[in-house]
């Protein structure tokens, strides 16, 4: 860019390499712009928001999304907002919680850039072309993007640009960067420098996530079309590499875990102890991610075989057709959009189908226009009056039988009786009655004391099993002792008035 000022740009235009480096740095700079922009624009918000450090919240949000990104989905929008709130609240503890949530939401929505149709950012930068001409170019990027999740939900993922903004200089070889971080971590732990170790462990975790993301994309492509993927070399190599990686990291991290646990348990300094505990969590999370990655890798082989059976061994068609992807879609994508549109327009015009145009008669139109609009009832359509029919009495026992049974069970409080005797007596009057008596006796085995207590009953039927066997032609089981207990109604009533104020729930359980 400084060459512009010399007045002879053509002759002193920088070499392509220097220019490219400049462009790269300009792009890196552009990625941070949305964060600075937040602090600039917070003044425009209705309300007093200057106390909030928006860039800090934004970085924390990117951090959270990156760490919550899972193998299948991304981070949940609301969850991120919720987890951002403590930090926002710490910045302005006296403000209401709603404001904290509003700030967290505002930051996240601005990172997604909800207002734009692309939901992304654009920066303009200039480069010198091969002919020395200065060209302004658009650089489009996203920081947090929305991806479809299962069941139509929307999840958040951080883009590579965002990860680069977050940890910096991450676009190196993932595997080697991870090894470096692990080695560094071990050294740091051995020297007891836990603060640095935590930083290294966190970086290692970002790389793990990045690695999983790369693999996820590749596996997704495998699932879609088996022929598209080189299953002879490329994919098996990739899977083996990833499995080796998982095995290696797993061993490594377990060793680290043992080390830090020791550090955690032996540490005397509470700060030291806390850091070690945090490290344990981070490494555990790394291990969890590796395990997840491994199970995906093991699924890939069977998936390929199943898809191959389905796709490759089908009987070949008699005639060859048009290769829609290879001959149409793939050649269209690299074209300039103006030219590509001609092809897609042609496909659309012939491929979308037909629509029958509506034909309206004037008579119908007049009628339709003059018909008053149908009032939409606020309460919905009127319910038809239900036609009630008296159902026939289908109780097994009649009122008279119940009375007879209750009379039989109206025992004096000091003379309980065996169930066998009661059944025999009931059977003498009515062959059905013993069933009712038995039923009532069984209910009495778990008497509704609480209800009786609340209702102020004076007596309560109870049944106790003392181990005696019932000898009866119709029933089996325990020969219960059935009796009546007198309840102290007056005392209970008094107690209730006291208790009602204290614990209402006590009466339910008794």
């Amino acid at each position: 860019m400084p060459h512009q000022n010399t007045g002879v740009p053509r002759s002193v235009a920088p070499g392509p390499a220097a220019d490219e480096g400049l462009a790269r740095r300009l792009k890196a700079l552009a990625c941070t712009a949305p964060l600075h922009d937040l602090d600039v624009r917070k003044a425009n918000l209705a309300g007093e928001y200057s106390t909030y450090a928006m860039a800090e919240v934004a970085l924390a949000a990117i951090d959270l999304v990156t760490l919550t990104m899972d193998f299948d989905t991304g981070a949940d929008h609301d969850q991120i907002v919720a987890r951002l709130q403590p930090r926002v609240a710490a910045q302005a503890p006296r403000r209401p919680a709603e404001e904290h949530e509003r700030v967290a939401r505002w930051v996240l929505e601005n990172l997604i850039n909800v207002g734009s149709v692309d939901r992304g950012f654009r920066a303009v930068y200039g480069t010198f072309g091969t002919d020395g001409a200065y060209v302004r170019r658009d650089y489009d990027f996203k920081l947090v993007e929305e991806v479809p999740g299962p069941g139509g939900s929307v999840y958040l993922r951080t883009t590579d640009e965002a990860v680069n903004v977050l940890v910096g200089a991450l676009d190196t070889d993932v595997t080697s960067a991870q090894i470096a971080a692990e080695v560094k971590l071990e050294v740091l732990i051995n020297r007891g420098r836990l603060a640095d170790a935590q930083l290294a462990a966190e970086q290692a975790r970002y790389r793990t996530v990045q690695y999983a993301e790369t693999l996820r994309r590749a596996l997704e492509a495998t699932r879609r079309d088996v022929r598209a993927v080189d299953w002879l070399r490329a994919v098996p190599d990739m899977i083996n590499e990833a499995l080796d990686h998982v095995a290696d990291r797993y061993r490594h991290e377990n060793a680290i875990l043992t080390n830090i646990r020791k550090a955690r348990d032996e540490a005397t300094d509470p700060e030291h102890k806390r850091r070690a505990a945090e490290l344990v969590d981070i490494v555990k999370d790394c291990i969890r991610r590796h395990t997840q990655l491994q199970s995906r890798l093991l699924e890939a082989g069977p998936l390929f075989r199943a898809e191959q059976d389905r796709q490759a061994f089908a009987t070949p068609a008699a005639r060859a057709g048009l290769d829609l992807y290879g001959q149409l879609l793939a050649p269209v994508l690299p074209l300039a959009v103006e030219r590509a549109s001609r092809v897609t327009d042609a496909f659309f015009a012939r491929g979308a189908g037909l629509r029958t145009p509506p034909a309206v008669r004037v008579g119908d139109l007049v009628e339709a226009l003059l018909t008053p609009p149908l009032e939409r009832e606020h309460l919905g359509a009127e319910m038809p009056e239900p036609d009630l029919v008296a159902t026939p009495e289908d109780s097994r026992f009649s009122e008279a039988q119940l009375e007879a049974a209750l009379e039989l069970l109206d025992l004096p409080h000091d003379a309980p009786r065996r169930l066998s005797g009661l059944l025999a007596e009931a059977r003498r009057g009515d062959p059905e009655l013993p069933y009712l008596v038995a039923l009532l006796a069984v209910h009495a085995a778990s008497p509704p004391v609480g209800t009786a207590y609340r209702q102020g009953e004076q007596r309560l039927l109870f049944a106790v099993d003392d181990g005696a066997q019932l000898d009866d032609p119709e029933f089996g089981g325990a020969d219960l002792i059935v009796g009546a207990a007198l309840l102290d109604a007056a005392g209970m009533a008094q107690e209730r008035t006291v208790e009602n104020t204290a614990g209402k729930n006590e009466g339910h359980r008794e």
Partner: protein
Amino acid sequence: MDDGETLAPAQEPEADRPAAVTPADAADAARLVACGLQPKLLPARDAEYAELIRRHRDDPAFARLADAVAAGLGLVVLEVSPRAGMAVAAAEDSVFAVRMGDYSRRAASDSSDRFLHGLAHLAVAAMAFPRPADLADDGYIGRITVNGVDAFVRQACRRLEERAEEQGENSDPASDAPGLEAAWRVYARRSATGATKDARRLAGSTTGIVGKAVAFLVDSGFLQRTGDEAGGTYRTTARYQLQVRDLAGSAAMAELLDLGVVPVGDGSASLLPPVGGEELDLVAEAGLPFHGS
């Protein structure tokens, strides 16, 4: 006029002198075309339609009459069969043709939206019939999901992006010439989805655009919805296969050839690299931009 000639009984050379075409025959022929204009109507579900289809097959005079009615209405007859019914497509200037402006208001004004909507239709077809054999096989039923189509195109775009990066190309478009932006880039930078206030799909997102395309194709009788997973799952109908194979695919191909982009294929499945660059040396038969090396 062609129909005038075919209608004249004197022109029928058949030995057993078929009966002259009556107004009732014309009404039946028109009714058959009318059935064809209802793309969701299937002969298997409608006895009268099935009878008209049978008559079209067995009675050449009636078949010519029905075809003439269709031609007069500006329709192209793709096939008349019990499985597809009378599959008709709108000729270019027909009143039945769908215009992009009616399809999407944004597409009429915004060139990148126009491209994305068209591309969505092409991608749905490519995903529904991933192999040339699938398009040729009458019994093939394609299955697609909205998210699957989006991921498929995105993958292709990503591959082109990586390729551009490997070659050190600067794919960022010049600010004053948006029309020269690479097509894949337009798709790649549009977000895949987006949260909206009312939990609907964001219309401007790529899944929103693909979703609109499949919904439209359902109304055209080209797809049938089978489930809600992955943004909606769909299966193809015989009509869709006919439409793509006999009409849309070749029309788009002709346009592409007109741009001088693709050498003429020999009908086999091999994918030849486009003229003017090695930027797309995909492996033969590749359904996706995954590479042999």
